[in-house]
């Protein structure tokens, strides 16, 4: 067995050897053909191998191509050559050593055993020598001549002869004297190396194997490569790959059998299949892996979520409260009445869980709905659309806007000091005299009264009859005249409150000889002296809802919300004449206002407020409330701001410099706002409504244009419930507010 293996090995190596022998020869030829002869010679040994590489390439391609590539090759050369020589070296040595191993055994003539003297030298030296020789001349075996030249002749033939064969020269090789058995045994006992020694019958000499050689033999016996460092599984280099090279190794077409399923194989397979089916062939069961393993290894590497869409985790189930305990405290258990009352509720509103009490744990029964509840939860988990909803966890106080403290904004009206009683029906309208000494009020009982503010004394009463819509004091302090709108008429009354001199002037002003009948205007307004009440009566064609004095006290505007073009009339007291406004109105007018300092006129319709320049007779601005119905307007004494009250209880503050939309909308009242008012000097304004409340606000307008007005609600002045407040007016000097209620009382609120 041992012999066989070694023989095979030697055969293999010799073959290699032969092929290698040829290669260098070929390489020698190639340089002759090429022009790089000198270069290759200079580079010496290594270059020979390089040449070998080149040669192979030349086989594949034409000579011309090589010429072109040469420069590149040279650059690559050092690397390639090194690798190659290393490989080559090992092969050479292996070759040599194998010869030694098998020296006496193989009958191959070319293989020659090493001389006895060589064998004694150390292995390392041997190798070195061998490779030098190998490098110098490729046929290293030639130098060590085989001693015996008998070749294939069996050695038995020489058994009885004196010699064992013939050397190169043809002389007989004499047999050496043999030690006898005993001697051999004794020497073997003494010598530890004796087991490594054997007799080479062929050459008739004793050979001793070195340790390395023994190792090599062992490796071969195990079926491994003789050298540990040789890699049998080196990556395969397909030198004969022709793909892309243009020339296949063989141009023969693929044989047909390669495309046809093999019948014999099919037979075999069907046999196996049958056997497997019938259970004649059984397989080993696959090894069972542990069902569970460490699924989450190191969490730090994994990202938050791998999925593209945002994952919405299901909401956690509600945690139980005290009432769900098996033994809740008594107050959590509903009484029988309450349980009965649940029956009256809608099914959705009915409580899902009715607490019950068990006095001990053993008496608690199984919960019937458990399975059903879990099922409902399962359905929720996979059937309910999930939406991420932001849970607001905010302090409700933080929602409120930061406003200055009302007590820092004093003075403002807070408490009711005086009630003016005398009217017998709802007080519709009030007006303060410009000095602040008097107020006038009109009521649905048909009377107009003038009160002294400080004492609450009723100074004068006029029985006007029919419904009074509006009263307005003349703004001039020396002209205590009162304008009252009664149904279709506007009365201008002399109150008789001024000094004698003033009285005379007023009498002159109100004196009228005969009714003026101007063409055109006469149909609309007719001026008549009213003897009964001692003033003027301006007859309109329809009822007048609102009147407003100009700041100079000469002009008076009246709103008649019926006629298209005649809806607003402007009367001039000094000339006793009336005129229409020269603007087209859009919709029914609600109220009007004069600008406190300039000749600007405000007209509010139900939807919006229009601002006109009276001198230029054109529209300046249109203010949109975006609310349903405007009920009243008031202009800030500065003239750039105004408030608009609406019938849905909202209050709009317009900053006319800022925009045509409200700067702020305050939802104050729950019912219609009946009137709004600005204070003439204090930064205050008020609104009153049919819900029985009057609000007082702080409304500061800064002279700095960059600063927005500051609006702070200050106070709710609560009237009697259910009775609306129909009018409110500020005292012209003091921060006091008059309100007129439908309970026929006028109230004064002071600070």
């Amino acid at each position, binding site marked *: 067995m041992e012999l066989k293996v070694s023989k095979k090995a030697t055969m293999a190596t010799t073959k290699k050897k032969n092929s290698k022998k040829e290669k260098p020869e070929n390489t020698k030829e190639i340089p002759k053909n090429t022009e790089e002869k000198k270069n290759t010679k200079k580079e010496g040994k290594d270059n020979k191998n390089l040449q070998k590489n080149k040669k192979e390439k030349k086989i594949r391609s034409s000579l011309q191509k090589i010429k072109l590539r040469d420069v590149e090759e040279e650059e690559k050369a050092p690397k390639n050559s090194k690798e190659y020589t290393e490989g080559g070296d090992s092969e050479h040595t292996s070759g040599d050593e194998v010869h030694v191993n098998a020296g006496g055994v193989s009958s191959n003539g070319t293989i020659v055993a090493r001389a006895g003297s060589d064998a004694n030298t150390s292995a390392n030296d041997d190798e070195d020598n061998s490779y030098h020789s190998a490098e110098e001349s490729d046929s290293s075996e030639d130098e060590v001549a085989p001693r015996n030249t008998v070749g294939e002749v069996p050695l038995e033939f020489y058994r009885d002869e004196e010699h064992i064969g013939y050397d190169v020269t043809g002389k007989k090789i004499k047999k050496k004297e043999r030690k006898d058995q005993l001697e051999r045994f004794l020497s073997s006992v003494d010598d530890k190396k004796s087991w490594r020694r054997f007799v080479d019958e062929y050459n008739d000499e004793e050979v001793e194997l070195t340790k390395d050689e023994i190792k090599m033999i062992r490796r071969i016996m195990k079926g491994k490569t003789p050298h540990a460092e040789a890699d049998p599984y080196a990556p395969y280099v397909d030198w004969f790959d022709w793909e892309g090279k243009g020339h296949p190794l063989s141009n023969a077409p693929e044989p047909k059998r390669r495309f046809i399923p093999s019948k014999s194989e099919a037979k075999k397979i069907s046999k196996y299949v049958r056997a497997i089916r019938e259970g004649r062939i059984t397989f080993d069961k696959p090894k069972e892996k542990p069902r569970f393993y460490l699924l989450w290894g190191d969490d730090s590497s994994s990202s938050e979520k791998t999925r593209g869409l945002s994952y919405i985790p299901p909401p956690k189930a509600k945690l*139980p409260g005290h009432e769900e305990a098996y033994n809740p405290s008594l107050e959590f258990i509903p009484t029988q009445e309450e349980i009965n009352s649940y029956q009256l509720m809608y099914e959705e509103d009915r409580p899902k869980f009715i607490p019950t009490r068990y006095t001990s744990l053993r008496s608690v029964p199984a919960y019937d709905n458990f399975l059903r509840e879990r099922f409902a939860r399962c359905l929720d988990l996979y059937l309910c659309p999930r939406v991420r909803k932001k849970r607001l966890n905010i302090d409700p106080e933080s929602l409120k806007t930061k406003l200055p403290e009302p007590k820092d904004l004093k003075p403002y009206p807070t408490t009711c000091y005086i009630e*003016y009683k005398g009217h017998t029906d709802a007080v519709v309208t009030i007006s303060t005299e410009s000095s602040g000494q008097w107020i006038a009020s009109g009521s649905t009982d048909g009377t107009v009264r003038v009160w002294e503010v400080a004492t609450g004394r009723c100074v004068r009463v006029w029985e006007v009859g029919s419904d009074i819509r509006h009263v307005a004091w003349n703004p001039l302090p020396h002209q205590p005249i009162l304008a009252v709108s009664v149904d279709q008429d506007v009365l201008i009354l002399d109150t008789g409150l001024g000094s004698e001199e003033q009285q005379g002037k007023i009498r002159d002003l109100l004196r009228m000889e005969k009714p003026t009948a101007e063409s055109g205007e006469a149909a609309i307004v007719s001026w008549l002296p009213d003897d009964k009440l001692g003033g003027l009566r301006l007859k309109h064609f329809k009822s007048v809802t609102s009147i407003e004095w100009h700041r100079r006290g000469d002009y008076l505007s009246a709103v008649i919300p019926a006629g298209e073009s005649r809806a607003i009339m402007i009367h001039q007291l000094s000339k006793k004449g009336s005129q229409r406004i020269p603007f087209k109105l859009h919709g029914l007018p609600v109220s009007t206002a004069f600008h406190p300092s300039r000749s600007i006129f405000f007209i509010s319709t139900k939807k919006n407020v229009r601002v006109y320049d009276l001198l230029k007779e054109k529209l300046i601005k249109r203010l949109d409330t975006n609310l349903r119905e405007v009920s009243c307007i008031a202009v800030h004494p500065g003239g750039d701001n105004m408030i608009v009250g609406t019938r849905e209880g909202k209050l709009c503050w317009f900053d006319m410099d800022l925009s045509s939309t409200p700067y702020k909308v305050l939802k104050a009242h729950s019912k219609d706002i009946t009137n709004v008012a600005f204070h003439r000097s204090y930064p205050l304004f008020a609104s009153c409504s049919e819900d029985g409340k009057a609000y007082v606000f702080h409304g500061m307008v800064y002279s700095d244009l960059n600063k927005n007005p500051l609006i702070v609600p200050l106070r709710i002045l609560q009237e009697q419930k259910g009775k609306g407040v129909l009018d409110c007016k500020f005292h012209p000097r003091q921060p006091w507010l008059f309100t007129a209620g439908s309970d026929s009382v006028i109230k004064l609120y002071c600070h």
Partner: protein
Amino acid sequence: MPKHYRPAGKKKEGNAAKYVTRSQAVKGLQVTLPLFRKMCIWKGIFPRDPKKKIKGNHQTYYHTKDISFLHHDPLVDIHRDIRAQDKKIKKAYSKKNKPRAVRLEEHKPTYNLDRLIIERYPRFIDALGDLDDCLTMVHLFAALPTLQNEKVEVKHIHSCRRLSHEWQAYISRTHKLRKTFISVKGIYYQADVDGQKITWIAPHSIQQVLTEDVDFNVMLTFLEYYETLLAFVNFKLYHSINVKYPPMLDPRLEALAADLYALSRYIASRSKEQDNHELASQVDESQLTLAQLQHQLAPSEPGALMHLIEEAETVDEADEETKECRSLFKDTKFFLGREVPREPLLFVITAFGGTISWEGDGAPFEESDPSITHQIVDRPTQNHMFLSRAYIQPQWVFDSVNARIILPTEDYVVGRVPPPHLSPFVDNEAEGYIPDYAQKIKQLQDAARIMPVPEVGNEHQDNTQNIVLDGVADRIEANKAAEMKKKMSAGQKQFHDELKMEVEGVSPATGTIKNVKVTTDPDESDKEQISEHPDMSEMTMSRRKRGLYESIRINKERKKAKVDVIESRKRNIKESQK
């Protein structure tokens, strides 16, 4: 180009392209509805709410990305294969080809859900956060009757029971249980694992009834997923405490239905072993057979659990709360009566560091053991009583655990109606109503904090309790005195105010002038303003904010109404008792 016009070839966009209805999805995936449902459950896909519902309000909408996510899952293909195989099997049976049918059945394609779990929960924390439903479901199925021919296979029930015990064993071993609550529905537990609060309900140990109106297909699909999830979670948790998973149990204890006890013993021994191994040479753990294990732990060894606790103390990574939980029942030894539900108590008491035994086979120690401090009994009367121990009802354990102090046992004595059981999940202050017993517990807790109970032997237990109670009584008295004082001072102030009013408040009323209101006290007017102020600032809010404010207010009112109802009931009860 008008908005509604889309040129030919241009894809849909917006909600129409993003969302599909369920029937569209099923059609697109080419699966049956049951399979679609199954896949949705397993992959955790849920319908979404598009802003614009193209196909109408009554449809459910899925996101197209979700659907394509389903579409790419290999499970869909496997299920198609299974369906095909089923058809083949049916055909084989109907052709009387039984061997083929059997063979085909053997080679049915199989699947597992491991991949889905890591896909749905890339981090372990995510899995823990989503474990509530899983645990409740597993505990429910563990309590279902193991009957053949029912809709639920017995193997599911067994595996659920095993999984739930494994989970409980881990929780009690690592002392991670925080809150417990016996409700009518079952027993709520809350544990804190890796900072995740996990709450689950275990039904009462009475067998559940299978109802007809439940679709078990859906339930079982969920269960299949949950079983896998919980097993992997358990594996990870056991791995974190160096215990092999799945645990091998003492068959004797298992047979006695003391699984939980067996498991905790196993864990204890295992982690101990692990330490030993680390110190000594590494022995391959798998070589340890069940027999060896049994040999190592003689079943009658009473100290096994004690070892467990001692050992746990060496773990230094535990946080404050865990330490507190671990040492709650450190000096107490429990014995359970036959009628007491064993599993929940075994779980809770060991989780809080107590030693426990029970009446029956496999118990670590006998009823006559003199070192027992508490015997838990749930019967009207107890015949034979040891004087050295307290006889209490099971609720005492749960209340003590929630309060984190050892409560006095007087109220829980056998035969008495125990005090009301309170939910630990309710924040009484936020709710606005504090039950009486909660106040009492609070006082006891404060007392315990002020005067920590000295660690004394069992025989001194009663003494210490008395001391605690005395302390509490003192505290209560002190509180009362303080209250009285406050009332007195308030009364005095009122009196002074009235006097002041009388002195200053008189004002002349002449003619029609009428003093409606006189504000003499500046404080009072300020108060009034403050009370009015909120209403005023509400006016200046924007509409959105006002709505929000309004809804908060309404919610508060609703809450208050509920509290009012409870309080009125309480008043009625008190009156009727008088």
